[in-house]
């Protein structure tokens, strides 16, 4: 390849990477945690005030609740599992019609159970928003609300990300064979970081290509559909998903005549062996289009959505009326479409694949962080061999180093603080959700301000210690909850919930190790670097070597 192309694509890689890198760090760090959204939701769920009805008694529950609140018949859920974040056995949601369809904060949740004398008890419940808050940070690169304009911003970042991926490969291609298996650990730190950046980038390239393309689709699919509808589909797209009208106008049906949930589950499992149902979603059960979606997962198959897939059954006859979204039973074109979702959301292969995505996601975050470090390192002013003073580093280099440290570690600290805060706020003031955004953003912007005030080297060390401390506070909070029940907190002992605590322990150790390494470099590393504590700190302070620098 002509070296000119390499030079041109290196410029593309540099500038797309610098613009998108920090936003992508947030998307990938929050996204790695979102792989385990359900364990996080279970960890953050207050102990259920509403006992779950036994599965055998659910027909009675459904009949009583629909008699008391006929509106619930539109769309309600029967949970088959007894996990911490699910109150009662039956639940439904009422959405604000004016809110964005992806905005979960405006949804009101209801749950129902049977009390001792068999009467329906319906309550408004407030499931913890923690896991969906972290998911929102992931979906809109750290912005507070998942709305159309914010998704468009994310889409621009995703386009830059795709450009950065292709250009990075073009730059690396001529020397790929020579460089790929070389991790030159040694005195040349920049060489080592570049080797590591290249290895991680090439090894996880398929993962990143999938993420970039799906993210662009998630941002702009509405717009693409609108254009294609008018140009290609002749305005018929809106009717593509309509089911044919029922042949006879059926009278209002009596939900008491529906098959029991356990029977519906048995029918779904008989239709698809290996499918593990987790919940039943009933829709329009009193109307002619009554349907129950038996949602679940099949670790041996591709799931079309993050929560799994479903078989659509007629709740009165138990007949399977749709398998377009059933893992392992989809038609080839539907499987093809589902695989995009599954490849983005780790909805295949079960828990081992989720852990793989967790690691790939964190590796991705590291990739963007290291990219910024390489930009900084390439613009380093070296101390002349002949001696003389230590040159001050360029102002733009100091700014970018501080921004990288502040934004990336601000996101890490902010997420840990909001996880911890969700439990404490519930115990102390009751309403935890109102505190999530203030906690995250005050921590996030506080870290950025601190990084600019102190400079990258010193702020890097202290912010890494803060990340270690706030992450360690996650399992410590669970310990405190057990030791001091008066604080009105809780600690669940399910493997999922304990897994959150243990992962946080490992994370805290990792941040602590990084903090020690950063402190060592700040103390003993080469003084002609933004990572040296001997460089000037805050941006307002005078530069000590200003008179010596080249120009």
């Amino acid at each position: 390849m002509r070296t000119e192309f390499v030079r041109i694509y290196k410029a593309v890689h540099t500038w797309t990477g610098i613009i998108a890198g920090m936003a992508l760090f947030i998307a990938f760090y929050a996204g790695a945690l979102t792989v385990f959204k359900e364990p996080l939701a279970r960890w953050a769920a207050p102990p259920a005030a509403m006992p779950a009805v036994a599965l055998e008694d659910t027909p009675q529950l459904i009949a009583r609740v629909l008699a008391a609140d006929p509106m619930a018949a539109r769309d309600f859920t029967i949970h088959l599992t007894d996990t911490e974040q699910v109150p009662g056995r039956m639940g439904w949601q009422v959405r604000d019609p004016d809110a964005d369809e992806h905005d979960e904060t405006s949804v009101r949740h209801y749950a129902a159970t049977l009390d001792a004398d068999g009467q329906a008890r319906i309550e408004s419940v407030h499931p913890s928003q923690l896991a969906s808050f972290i998911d929102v940070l992931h979906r809109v690169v750290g912005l507070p609300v998942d709305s159309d304009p914010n998704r468009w911003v994310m889409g621009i970042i995703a386009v830059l990300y795709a450009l950065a991926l292709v250009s990075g490969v073009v730059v690396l291609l001529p020397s790929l064979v020579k460089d790929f298996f070389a991790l030159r650990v040694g005195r040349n730190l920049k060489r080592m970081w570049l080797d590591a950046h290249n290895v991680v980038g090439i090894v996880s390239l398929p993962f990143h290509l999938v993420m970039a393309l799906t993210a662009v689709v998630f941002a702009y699919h509405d717009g693409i559909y609108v254009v294609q509808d008018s140009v290609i589909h002749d305005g018929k797209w809106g009717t593509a998903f309509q089911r044919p009208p029922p042949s006879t106008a059926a009278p209002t049906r009596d939900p008491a005549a529906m098959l029991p949930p356990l029977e519906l589950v048995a029918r779904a499992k008989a239709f698809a062996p290996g499918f593990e149902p987790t919940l039943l979603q009933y829709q329009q059960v009193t109307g002619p289009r009554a349907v129950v979606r038996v949602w679940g997962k099949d670790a041996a198959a591709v799931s079309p959505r993050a929560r799994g897939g479903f078989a659509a059954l007629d709740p009165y006859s138990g007949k399977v009326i749709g398998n377009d979204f059933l893992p392992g039973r989809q038609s080839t074109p539907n499987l093809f479409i589902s695989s995009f979702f599954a490849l983005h959301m780790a909805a295949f292969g079960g828990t081992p694949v989720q852990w793989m995505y967790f690691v790939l996601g964190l590796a991705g975050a590291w990739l963007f962080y290291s990219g910024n470090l390489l930009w900084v390192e390439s613009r380093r002013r070296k101390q002349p061999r002949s001696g003389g003073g230590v040159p001050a580093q360029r102002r733009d280099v100091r700014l970018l180093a501080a921004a990288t440290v502040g934004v990336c570690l601000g996101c890490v600290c902010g997420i840990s603080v909001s996880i911890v805060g969700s439990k404490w706020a519930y115990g102390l003031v009751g309403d935890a959700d109102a505190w999530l955004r203030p906690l995250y953003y005050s921590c996030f912007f506080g870290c950025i301000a601190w990084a600019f005030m102190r400079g990258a080297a010193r702020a890097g060390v202290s912010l890494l210690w803060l990340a270690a401390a706030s992450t360690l506070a996650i399992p410590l909070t669970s310990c405190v909850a057990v030791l001091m029940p008066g604080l009105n907190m809780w600690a669940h002992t399910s493997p999922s919930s304990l897994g959150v605590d243990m992962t946080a322990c490992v994370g805290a150790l990792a941040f602590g190790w990084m903090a020690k390494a950063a402190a060592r470099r700040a103390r003993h590393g080469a003084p002609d670097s933004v990572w040296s504590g001997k460089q000037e700190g805050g941006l307002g302070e005078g530069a000590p070597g200003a008179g010596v620098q080249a120009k």
Partner: protein
Amino acid sequence: MAGSSHPPIQRDWLSKTLAGLVLGAVLAFALSGLFSRLNAGMPLSVRGQLAMWMVPPIWLGVLSGVYFFSSGLRAWLWLGMAAAGLAGAFYLL
């Protein structure tokens, strides 16, 4: 490398990027339209989704490859011809 035998490559950042963005979009929509026309037997719900998923890979592929053209003018000419040909084929079908 035989760098001396080639004319130098012009950067033309703006015109190449615009060519990639604009003509990449035309190419992507034209190809997705051709796909939809040629698979008219597939249910619209499935065909439409596949056609939508085709757009970003083609669009971004063109956008990220556009800097290989030796000048912005050549990018516009080649991509423009390809886009016109495919769009024409789509409307003729």
